[in-house]
């Protein structure tokens, strides 16, 4: 065991950091893109009605196919992995942003208009805050998924915990596979919890479950 860590310890530490970096940057970028797209789509329901199904379908293209295609265009650079992961991470957040905004009850929007808010003020003061729980559910989903999708980056030689998994699988070394899989699982759980914690911090009491 000590021997194992002497050999792989440094590599594991680095793999965890790389993995984490992929996840955090791609989810962060995806959140920004998804929020902007979600808001835009919610303003034009006519377009959204056919866009959303298309987006849902493209989400089912297997990640490996997608990474492969990107690889052909962008080469073996971290940007390839980052782009692929970010694009995948957009879907759940976009879907939830759109659904969350659409789910804001008309009475709140009407009251806001009646108070003399501009469309922009209604979006930022009313619609987005009310959609926040749904949006966060999307971010959480994205984060957890991205941790596992990031395992694929190793397939094009871009590091992360996937390296252990693949080496383990290809050399039939289950210790190596597990060494990659367990930190990934822990990372998914921990990041999920982190998102929950942030959400709890920023959601006003009025939008949290009523305790009765």
């Amino acid at each position, binding site marked *: 065991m000590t021997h194992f860590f002497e050999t792989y310890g440094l590599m594991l530490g680095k793999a965890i950091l790389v993995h984490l970096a992929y996840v955090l940057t791609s989810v962060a970028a995806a959140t920004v893109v998804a929020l902007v797209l979600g808001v835009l789509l919610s303003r034009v329901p006519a377009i959204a009605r056919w866009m959303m199904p298309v987006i849902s379908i493209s989400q089912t293209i297997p990640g490996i196919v997608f990474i492969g295609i990107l690889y052909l265009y962008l080469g073996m650079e971290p940007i390839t992995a980052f782009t692929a992961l970010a694009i995948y991470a957009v879907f759940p957040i976009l879907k939830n942003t759109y659904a969350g905004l659409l789910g804001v009850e008309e009475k709140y929007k009407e009251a806001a208009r*009646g108070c*003399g808010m501009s469309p922009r003020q209604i979006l930022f003061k009313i619609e987005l805050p009310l959609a926040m729980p749904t949006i966060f559910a999307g971010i959480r989903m994205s984060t957890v998924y991205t941790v596992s999708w990031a395992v694929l980056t190793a397939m094009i030689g871009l590091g992360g915990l996937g390296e252990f998994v693949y080496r383990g699988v290809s050399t039939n070394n289950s210790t190596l596979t597990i060494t990659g899989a367990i930190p990934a699982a822990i990372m998914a759980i921990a990041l999920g919890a982190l998102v929950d914690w942030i959400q709890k911090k920023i959601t006003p009491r009025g939008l949290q479950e009523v305790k009765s």
Partner: protein
Amino acid sequence: MIEYRNVSKNYGERQIVKNLNFTIEDGQFAVLIGPSGCGKTTTLKMLNRLIQSDGGEILLDGKNVNEINAEQLRQHIGYVIQQIGLFPNMTVEQNITVVPRLLKWDKARCAERVRELLALVDMDYDTYAKKYPNELSGGQQQRIGVLRALAAEPPVILMDEPFGALDPITRDSLQDEVKSLQKRLKKTIIFVTHDMNEAIKMADVILFMSDGELLQQASPEEMLRAPANDIVREFMGKHVAQGVSGQDNIPCGEIMRKNVAKVSSSWRTLECVQMMSSREIDSLVVVDENDRYLGVVTIEGIKAHGKPGMEVTKLLETTVPTVYTDTLAKEAFGTLDSTRARYLIVLDKNERPVGIITRTSMSKALAYMVWGGDAV
């Protein structure tokens, strides 16, 4: 002053509002009433441009509302909706100050305004200001809804069936509160309802709409005395009777009947007679602006000394015995027997009438003791 001149609204081929003409004076409490779907909401929302009119013009103090920036217009017209629509992500304080903040009032002024407004409806600042809407009862929520509309001191307030979703008792007290606020603050209010009792209770002037047209604009008194046509007459008859029976026999406490037929001291004789006949009672309790007990007015009194349009305060009788909510029922029954009064008025500790005890209450109380709760 609010003026509608030949205002109309179409949806496709259908004309929803047809050449509406009317004027509402400053400080008037105007109630728009009429059957469901007759165009009341549409008429109301054209004023703050939540709905765009198709023809004619709507003047607010002589200015065509279509020439005012829609957002600025709405910031200067209070608006209360039936579904209340308090923003769930904001505290009571934040909800109340929505419009002042849009108008860039400074913090201190906003905070002071919230205190002032909460005091108006007897809600304690420290208890309620930091609460969220989901932590309030329906009645409290709509009080805040009304305060939000009042916050930036708009001269005009629009209310679209604001009490429609509330239970009868809460509705009753909110009606009283809003009416007395309107008098005190001298606001012009346009209030939509399809409950004739509510209209009679609140209105200085009632505008009766049917099928997109204005059939009659008159004081409650006059509308009751001289309905313009059969539609108005029938609607009033039906609704006065219905609304009241819904409020009858709400059991509260063990014996006291809680639905006191209260009228404010500004009421006039005909309105009272109408209310008595619709409730099948022969007297009404009269209260002052703070809801405190003044006396009663009876049908005999009105018959003997009243003239149409006379204020009820001239006919007040103060001979009915009163008791307090914490008086023992036994004592109350004793008083009923010894004074041979037909009923007693129950006051709370602030001298507000909150119930009556009749001889029927006595027999019901007896039945309750013999058969248990369901009999009451």
